[in-house]
C-alpha cells in the first residue's frame, strides 16, 4: 500500500510532520489562520497568517510559509520556515544544503536583491519544537527591526 518495506514511510512522515506543524501553528497566539497548499488536507506546503499585534509587537502582518521533507533514513530531514510581510521584509530559518554557510541550518534575510546568510543551530529537529523555536526567533527579529 505504501511501497516502503521494513520501516517508516518517509512520504507518510512528511505528511504527518506537516499535519503536526499545522496543529502547533494554530496554537500559537501570533498565528491567525493556517492553510494547506495545493489542497487543504493533502498539502505539501503550509501558509500561516501572522499578526504580530496579537502579542503586542508593532510590526506589519506577514505570512510564514512552511515546507518539510523527510527522505531516506540515511539522509537528514530538510525544512524551511520562510517569512515575508506587507512591507517587503523577507527572512527564513532553513535546514538544507546551500553554498553560503557551513552545515544545513541557517538564517537568511533579504537585503536589496540578494540574501545574507548566517549559521543557525536548531535546538531540536522535531517538527513541533521547530515551530515554537522559529516563532520565538521571528518575534526577536520583529522586535529588533
Amino acid at each position: 500500500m505504501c511501497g516502503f518495506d521494513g520501516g517508516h514511510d518517509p512520504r507518510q512522515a512528511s505528511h504527518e510532520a506537516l499535519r503536526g506543524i499545522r496543529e502547533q501553528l494554530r496554537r500559537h497566539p501570533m498565528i491567525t489562520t493556517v492553510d494547506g497548499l495545493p489542497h487543504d488536507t493533502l498539502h505539501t506546503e503550509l501558509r500561516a497568517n501572522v499578526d504580530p499585534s496579537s502579542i503586542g509587537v508593532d510590526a506589519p502582518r506577514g505570512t510564514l510559509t512552511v515546507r518539510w521533507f523527510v527522505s531516506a533514513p540515511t539522509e537528514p530531514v530538510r525544512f524551511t520556515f520562510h517569512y515575508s510581510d506587507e512591507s517587503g521584509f523577507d527572512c527564513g530559518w532553513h535546514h538544507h544544503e546551500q553554498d553560503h554557510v557551513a552545515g544545513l541550518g541557517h538564517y537568511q534575510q533579504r537585503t536589496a536583491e540578494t540574501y545574507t546568510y548566517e549559521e543557525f543551530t536548531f535546538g531540536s529537529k522535531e517538527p513541533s519544537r521547530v515551530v515554537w523555536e522559529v516563532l520565538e526567533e521571528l518575534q526577536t527579529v520583529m522586535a529588533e527591526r
Partner: protein
Amino acid sequence: MITVDYRRGSLQPAILVYNPNNWNRDNFIRFGTLSLCMGNSARGVEAWTEHTTAFDRVRSIVEALDQARTAQYIADAAAVSETTANNHLKRLAEMNVIRTITGEDATRYEPDPLYARFRTLRGLITDHDHEELLELKGDLQAQIEDAKQQYGVGSPTALREQAAEADTAAETMDCIEAASDWELTRYHLSIVEDAIENYTEYAAIDRGTPA
C-alpha cells in the same frame, strides 16, 4: 562564569550564565522574571509548555517521528519527565496511535502507519463527496504529470539521481524538493484512490447506516 548584559532587542538587562566548556546560545539560564536571557530555543519550549498539555506535547512529538525513538528521547523532545512520557506513550499505544518496538537495549515507539493513513482517509470522507474526490484525484494526477514534464524524468527516484549529479547546492535542493513533493503526491493519490474505491461503504459507516 556570570555576565550581566543587555540582549539585543531586549528591554531589560539579562543575566547570562554559561559553561565556557559547552557554550551555545541556549545555555543561558533563567533567573526570576529575567527570561529574556534565555535562548530562543528555550523560550520556544517555555511558550510551548504554556500553550499545551504534557499529553499534547508527547502526542505531537511521537506522531511526527520519522524513526522509532526511546521514551527518553521523546521525553526530552516533549519537555516532560520520562515517567510522564512513559505513561502517555502507554495510552497512545493502547489507542493504536503509535506502535511499540521491543529491542534488546530499549523499547522504541513510532507512529502507527495504519492509524495515520486512516486518519487522513477519514478527513477526506468527511470533507468531500464522491464527485469532489474524483476531481481531487485528477488534480493530483495533473501535479505528477507536471513534475514529469518539468524535470524530464519518469519517477521521483530518477529525480533524486539527478539531484546527486547537480552542480550547485541550489540545484540539488530544487531536485530534492520536487522529488519529495512528487513522492508525497503519490502517497496522497493512493489515499484518494482508496477513498474513491470504498466511498459507498465508508460514507455509509460515517452516516451510521452501514450496508
